[in-house]
């Protein structure tokens, strides 16, 4: 196994022999980080004093230099000093070691290896402050159920306390911390605080701790066993399921997670992403070299710690492309990366690819169209392993640093003036164009959708049934039409085949009569009389996602057992079905279908108003519920219902549609995996359709359909685009005004900013 050199800084906390005073900092490395940095960290992560030393605490810290935030892992080793104070009490030493995260991330070092390397040093190490640490081999770990539970519960954002390990040696507990951390993306170590011992009567802010009794707000995991996870802890159940998958090799998963070194927080904005990475790790969906922003050092690569605007660009692009997620302003655990996770992804608000594609490594993400990637230079930030002296006074809370970072753009005077001028020019141009367009626009109200009898040239009419459950098929076809270069116009009709246009390009969606549910595995049948006479021919069939899905209580039944219960009788499995008789004749009757298809199932009917009731009461192990009820229930979904007969819509296309359109529709229809229809991905029909089209028909360069769309929009109604232009111009003008107002006050303090007295002169200042 290869050893790597890791730099560090240190401080020693204790008492002088015979001292009357309390614990204090006795000495420190006095390199880049001053005593105030260590004072803060030691006061923040105090765990109490164990009678059984040594013990280890893992803390995290961020240092801010100018606008750049650097993450550090702080390892504190507490041990007896061999000295006594004035009242003859034993003195404990706490040795604090600051290690740059990116050094660890590059070599993926474990806590245990780091502890072994640092604990062997003298109490006051002398330069060079470098230790050799072996590289981490995550596949050597054997996670027990307790570690899996702890990792899954950590992904709820709440702290986890391990109890019942009083007699377990410290080094074994430290290894447990490593194991839990290995079950999370490596980048979460930038926020994972942990300790091998904490006082049960002391309050602390550690996420993962060992104690005799768990604190009030923490999940309790029993050493060697696990935890009780209730149905309320939906995410924990889901993550636990991901960690216990049989379709993924543990070694692959651990290797994949160890490579994900992008900093990730335990805040609400990052936890969904972490869970998704957990899902993809080891499943082959992640590129083998997917490390995110902080990658293994390559010659000429950017220095991730130094960051700089260039790093920002890379980070922001990486996050936006890879893992968009909701941002939670004011959250304690905010990700330090600005601009990466802004806003909840919505269809239309971000490109479809941004919403739905699996994680992609940064390297695979090219610069966004119209943006110029920044290339950092030596002046843009310090080189690796050299942190400017102003960092000495710059330990800040991550949140503070981030806030500052968001508020203070890192441009110089020149850049600011340029930005003001650019925004002002943009504002004038946009407003001017918008006003002119509005003046030239014809009067009257904009035409209502579907108002026009005919269609514009280049438009494909999509004639489809109006049902809510058919929205997925409609959107799928519409998106595919757009992707082939046409503009789509959806027309809803109860009898789409009869009212389909003949002369213009058109796609018709007609319902396929359901196969006999009593015949297991029966294939869908084509309509008896397709409107072939009108020049339409069948292209493909689209399965319609069922309105109901099957959810289960992971604490009561395993997914394999539930799936097996649909294949052969199992007296233990009980499933509740909602009573849908009150919802009209058009509503499917899941109970009726199940009784016909799986007569051996033990079904329990529950009111349609509360379909989860029996599951909550643990009267059943699984429940068939509408998607909207399953979405927020916290229960994992089973794909056992995938074999149920579902409706399908047949795509018919006329000759005017052309071969390209038919091929595209066929490709998209074939890309649907019926087994995945029950998943959350299909809860939102618009998003699901966009994602499928994006994955099946990658966007060609030169985006013809978009240009076509814009042109037709302009021709159809120039009023709204004009108004949008004016609004955009106003926003740009406002930004220019803001920048202009802030300009003098932003420059003045920097010019006269005094350097910390102990800080040596910066070579680039």
């Amino acid at each position, binding site marked *: 196994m290869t050893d790597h050199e890791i730099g560090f800084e240190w401080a020693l906390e204790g008492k002088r022999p015979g001292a009357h005073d309390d614990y204090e900092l006795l000495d420190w490395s006095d390199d880049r980080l001053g005593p105030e940095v260590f004072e803060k960290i030691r*006061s923040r992560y105090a*765990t*109490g004093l164990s009678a059984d030393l040594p013990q280890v605490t893992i803390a995290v810290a961020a240092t801010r230099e100018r606008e750049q935030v650097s993450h550090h892992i702080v390892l504190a080793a507490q041990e007896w000093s061999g000295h006594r104070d004035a*009242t003859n*009490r*034993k003195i404990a030493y706490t040795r604090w070691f600051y290690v740059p995260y990116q050094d660890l991330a590059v070599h993926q070092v474990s806590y245990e290896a780091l502890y072994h390397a640092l604990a062997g040093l003298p109490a006051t190490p002398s330069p060079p402050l470098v230790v050799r640490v072996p590289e981490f081999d995550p596949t050597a770990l054997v996670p027990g159920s307790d570690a899996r539970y702890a990792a899954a519960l950590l992904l709820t954002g709440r702290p986890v306390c391990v109890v019942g390990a009083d007699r377990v040696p410290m080094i074994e507990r430290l290894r447990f911390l490593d194991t839990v951390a290995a079950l999370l993306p490596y980048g979460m170590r930038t926020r994972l605080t942990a300790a091998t011992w904490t006082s049960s009567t*002391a309050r602390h802010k550690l996420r993962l701790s060992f104690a*005799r*009794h768990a604190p009030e707000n*923490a999940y309790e995991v029993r050493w060697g066993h696990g935890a009780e996870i209730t149905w309320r802890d939906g995410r924990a159940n889901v993550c636990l399921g991901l960690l216990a998958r049989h379709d993924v090799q543990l070694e692959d998963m651990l290797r994949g997670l160890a490579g994900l070194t992008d900093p990730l927080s335990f805040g609400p904005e990052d936890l969904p992403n972490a869970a998704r990475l957990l899902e993809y790790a080891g499943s082959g969906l992640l590129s083998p070299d997917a490390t995110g922003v902080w990658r293994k050092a390559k010659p000429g690569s950017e220095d991730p710690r130094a960051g700089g605007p260039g790093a920002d660009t890379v980070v922001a692009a990486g996050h936006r492309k890879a893992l968009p997620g909701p941002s939670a302003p004011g959250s304690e655990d905010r990700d330090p990366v600005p601009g990466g996770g802004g806003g909840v992804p919505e269809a239309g608000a971000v490109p479809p690819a941004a919403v739905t594609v699996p994680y992609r490594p940064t390297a695979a993400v090219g610069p966004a169209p119209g943006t110029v990637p920044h290339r950092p230079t030596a002046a843009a930030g310090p080189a690796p392993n050299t942190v400017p002296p102003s960092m000495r006074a710059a330990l800040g809370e991550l949140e503070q640093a981030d806030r500052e970072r968001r508020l203070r753009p890192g441009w110089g005077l020149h850049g600011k003036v340029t930005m003001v001028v650019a925004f002002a020019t943009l504002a004038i141009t946009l407003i001017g164009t918008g006003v002119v367009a509005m003046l030239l626009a014809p009067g009257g109200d904009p035409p209502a959708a579907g108002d026009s009898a005919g269609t514009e040239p280049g438009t494909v009419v999509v004639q489809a049934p109006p049902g809510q459950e058919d929205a997925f098929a409609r959107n799928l076809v519409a998106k595919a039409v757009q992707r082939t270069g046409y503009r789509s116009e959806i027309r809803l009709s109860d009898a789409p085949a009869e009212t389909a246009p003949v002369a213009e390009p058109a796609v018709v969606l007609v319902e396929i009569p359901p196969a006999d549910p009593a015949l297991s595995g029966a294939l869908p049948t084509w309509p008896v009389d397709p409107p072939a006479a009108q020049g339409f021919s069948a292209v493909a069939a689209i399965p319609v996602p069922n309105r109901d899905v099957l959810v289960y209580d992971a604490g009561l039944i395993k997914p394999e057992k539930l799936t097996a219960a649909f294949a052969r009788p199992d007296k233990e499995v009980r499933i509740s079905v909602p009573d849908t008789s009150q919802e009209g004749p058009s509503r499917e009757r899941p109970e009726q279908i199940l009784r016909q298809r799986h007569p051996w199932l033990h079904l329990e009917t529950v009111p349609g108003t509360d379909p989860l009731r029996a599951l909550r009461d643990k009267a059943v192990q699984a429940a068939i519920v509408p998607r909207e009820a399953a979405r927020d229930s916290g229960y994992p979904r089973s794909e056992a219902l995938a074999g149920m007969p579902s409706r399908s819509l047949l795509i018919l296309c006329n000759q005017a549609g052309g071969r390209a359109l038919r091929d595209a529709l066929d490709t998209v229809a074939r890309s649907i995996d019926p087994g995945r229809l029950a998943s959350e991905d299909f809860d939102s029909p618009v998003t699901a359709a966009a994602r499928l089209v994006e994955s099946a028909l990658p966007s060609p360069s030169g985006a013809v359909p978009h240009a076509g769309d814009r042109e037709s929009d302009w021709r159809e109604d120039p009023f709204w685009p004009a108004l949008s232009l004016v609004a955009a111009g106003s926003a740009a003008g406002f930004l220019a005004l803001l920048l202009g107002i802030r300009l003098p006050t932003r420059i003045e303090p920097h010019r006269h900013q005094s350097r910390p007295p102990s800080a040596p002169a910066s070579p680039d200042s």
Partner: protein
Amino acid sequence: MQPDPSRERPDHNIAMWGAPGSGKTTLLAALFIALTKSDDDWKIIGSDPASSDYLIEKTNALLRGKLFPEANMTMERYHWTLLGPALRKPGFWSRKAKPGPPARIGIGMTDAPGGWYGPAGGPSALDGSGDPRLQKLLDNLERSRGIVFLYDPIREFTLGDAFDHMHAPLTRLAERMLAAGEFTDGKLPHHIAVCVTKFDDPRVLETAEKRRLLTVDIDDPYRLPRVTSEDARELFHELCQVSASGTADMVLKALDQFFHPDRIRFFATSSIGFYVDRRTKRFDWDDFQNMVPGEADEDSRIRGQLHPINVVEPMLWLGQRLAAIRPTVVS
């Protein structure tokens, strides 16, 4: 099992306040023993498993191991319930009184390292905006309505820094209480039990003896000397005269300035008490030291049995006074 949000919370918060080594942790460790040995029918029970553990472990360490507890490195919180004798309900129409539920006082005790009160961080740091420990300390003092203030006369004689460990936190506390409108009668709303610790040290005992402040409880089989609560203030004043820095008298003045006289009580306290020979079972003026200082690399040990003096009394006084202001709700 996952956390139970309905876990019982204390009715009254009490903070321990004193310089490093003044005996805060030892006093708490001796609480269970003191209550068990007292004639009062008061009991102390942990309100949560961690607080019960503390009582059990520290009691065992003092009784069996004869060892003093180690210094704290962070703020520890204990939730205990003091259960007293059953209250008697007056009978209806002059009938015989009936026993009611026992007196019950829930206390949340916090024990912070003495250094947190000290001037090491500088007064400016005590505004709570810098060091999170100080923020926590002030938050806790603000939330508490009872304070056990420990004055270590031996440390004062050696270093003379009791006032240093008092005035900055006290000033900041007053500032906060004033801002919160809790300075109604010109004083802090807190009750404060001032404990002159290490009463078992010969120098302290001799000072009390010279001032003729010692009494003996006739019901005490060991005939241990004590200082009544009324005389403890005079003992405090007398001990202030030997302060190494000469600032100890300012502690007394600051107490009078910031706390209402009705809300201050003095106690001469010893957590381990005096040594009593097992055979004679009588206090011996020629052989009463119960603490054996450790040699070079040894712990200080307790020589004989523990006979805590005025350990329970400050807690009960505070508990009863606070309960009288805001009675405990017995469900």
